[in-house]
């Protein structure tokens, strides 16, 4: 009998296991991939502060992000990040997170999928185990959480579909093409409106460049266009093809991002605790999902050990990073409505170019409130 069983060895699961094991609980993590990270996709840019429960001195990051650039319709804004941001590869990151949980005493089992939880019985495709408390850290495709009746499935309007590619050549070429110093990294966020509206992201690994897009699932369905075709069109129109010319495609991947969840979904019931993407705590503007995942996991780890399901939700609401992510959601919903985004992108770029040329047109003044909102969101994205 385990004290705590963690379903999923991603960031949320490893943070939960780290905390529970450190508190002396007999803890096991069950991960379906051949190793932690083998099934996981993301940018990934993380705020090192968010991971402070781990020993970040040994964090295996690719590059430190020295510039954050926002780019839409030819307009670019570049800023230096306030906090320490780094680009990471998920396989290395997730392995490292899991190994820290293991060092704290948690047991990790891989290549095993949890099929359902029935009270203290945890049923996997390799047999059953027993646990007092169960932390569900299954990520966006939270089959066990849904199966347990704790939350429902996402709807297309609450889901972003992403596709991502990693191109590699050499460290020098990455530096040269993006104008970076030895260890320097950049992260670029694009907004595009064709063929459907969406956001693009570019990150730098040591010897490679990652580019991907996120588009709303509802747009894909109503325009009958496939994400891979949107990716190709956007790469062409943003000049990414030229940027990666001569590089070889090292990896193609895809994953959904949940844009709804806690507090509309319950975080806890009986001996079950939901965390990370399974709970729906991604910050929709910054794409920060790993930060909220480890923070919610860490809190769940502690409260599961102490059997305090009752105070889990209020603890989550009180945490700053998490409450910020939750508060942004309604605003984002409004801003990213497909009918708004096209007009919005062109308006903002018009506005910014007339702004820089000193000619603030009347039309712009009428739309100033929207601009202000966007500016706030942009600030949020880089702070």
């Amino acid at each position: 009998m385990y004290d705590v069983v963690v379903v999923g060895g991603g960031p949320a699961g490893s943070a939960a296991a780290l905390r529970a094991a450190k508190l002396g609980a007999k803890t096991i993590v069950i991960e379906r991939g051949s190793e932690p990270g083998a099934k996981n996709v993301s940018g990934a840019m993380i705020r090192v502060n968010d991971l402070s429960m781990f020993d970040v001195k040994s964090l295996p990051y690719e590059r430190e992000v020295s510039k954050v650039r926002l780019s839409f319709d030819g307009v670019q804004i570049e800023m230096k990040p306030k906090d320490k941001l780094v680009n990471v590869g998920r396989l290395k990151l997730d392995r490292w997170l899991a190994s820290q949980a293991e060092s704290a005493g948690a047991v990790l089992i891989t290549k095993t999928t949890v099929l359902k939880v029935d009270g203290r019985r945890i049923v996997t495709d390799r047999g059953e185990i027993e646990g007092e408390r169960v932390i569900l850290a299954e990520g966006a495709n939270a089959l066990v959480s849904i199966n347990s009746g704790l939350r429902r499935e996402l709807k297309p309007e609450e889901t972003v579909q992403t596709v991502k590619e990693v191109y590699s050549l050499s460290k020098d070429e990455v530096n040269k093409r993006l104008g970076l110093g030895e260890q320097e990294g950049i992260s670029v966020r694009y907004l595009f409106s064709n063929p459907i509206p969406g956001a693009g992201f570019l990150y730098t690994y040591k010897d490679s460049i990652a580019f991907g897009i996120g588009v709303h699932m509802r747009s894909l369905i109503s325009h009958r266009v496939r994400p891979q075709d949107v990716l190709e069109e956007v790469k062409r129109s943003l000049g990414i093809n030229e940027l990666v010319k001569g590089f070889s495609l090292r990896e193609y991947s895809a994953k959904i991002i949940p844009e709804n969840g806690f507090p509309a979904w319950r975080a806890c019931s009986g001996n079950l605790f939901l965390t990370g993407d399974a709970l729906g705590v991604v910050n929709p503007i910054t794409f920060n999902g790993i930060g909220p995942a480890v923070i919610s996991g860490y809190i769940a780890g502690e409260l599961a050990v102490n059997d305090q399901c009752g105070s889990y939700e209020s603890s989550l609401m009180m945490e700053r990073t998490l409450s910020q992510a939750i508060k942004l959601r309604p605003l984002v919903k409004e801003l990213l409505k497909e009918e708004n985004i096209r007009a919005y992108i062109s308006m903002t770029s018009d506005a910014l170019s007339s702004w820089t040329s000193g000619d603030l047109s009347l039309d712009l003044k009428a739309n100033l409130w929207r601009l202000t909102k966007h500016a706030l969101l942009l600030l949020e994205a880089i702070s």
Partner: protein
Amino acid sequence: MKVEEKLYTLRYKRDDEPHLKIKNFDVCSRCEKEYGTPQPCISVCPANVYVWDGTRMVISYENCVECGACKIACPFNNIAWSFPRYGLGMSLRYG
């Protein structure tokens, strides 16, 4: 580059048991009448797993990148979606 070529960048270990199944093929025909082609599952799948042959939905589950989109997109909840067993399926190097 075609998606099928891009999928070569992934390491796959095939589960002989399909992890994706259509619950009821008649529902897909109804879906085609209501939504036309490509149907929602086809529109959202980044790995061309679903192919409509004019009368029937054919699934190449071995190509699935496990993104989770199709089960959400299907308006009829007609896809029995699970993970490949024992960690089989695709594995990533970067993520």
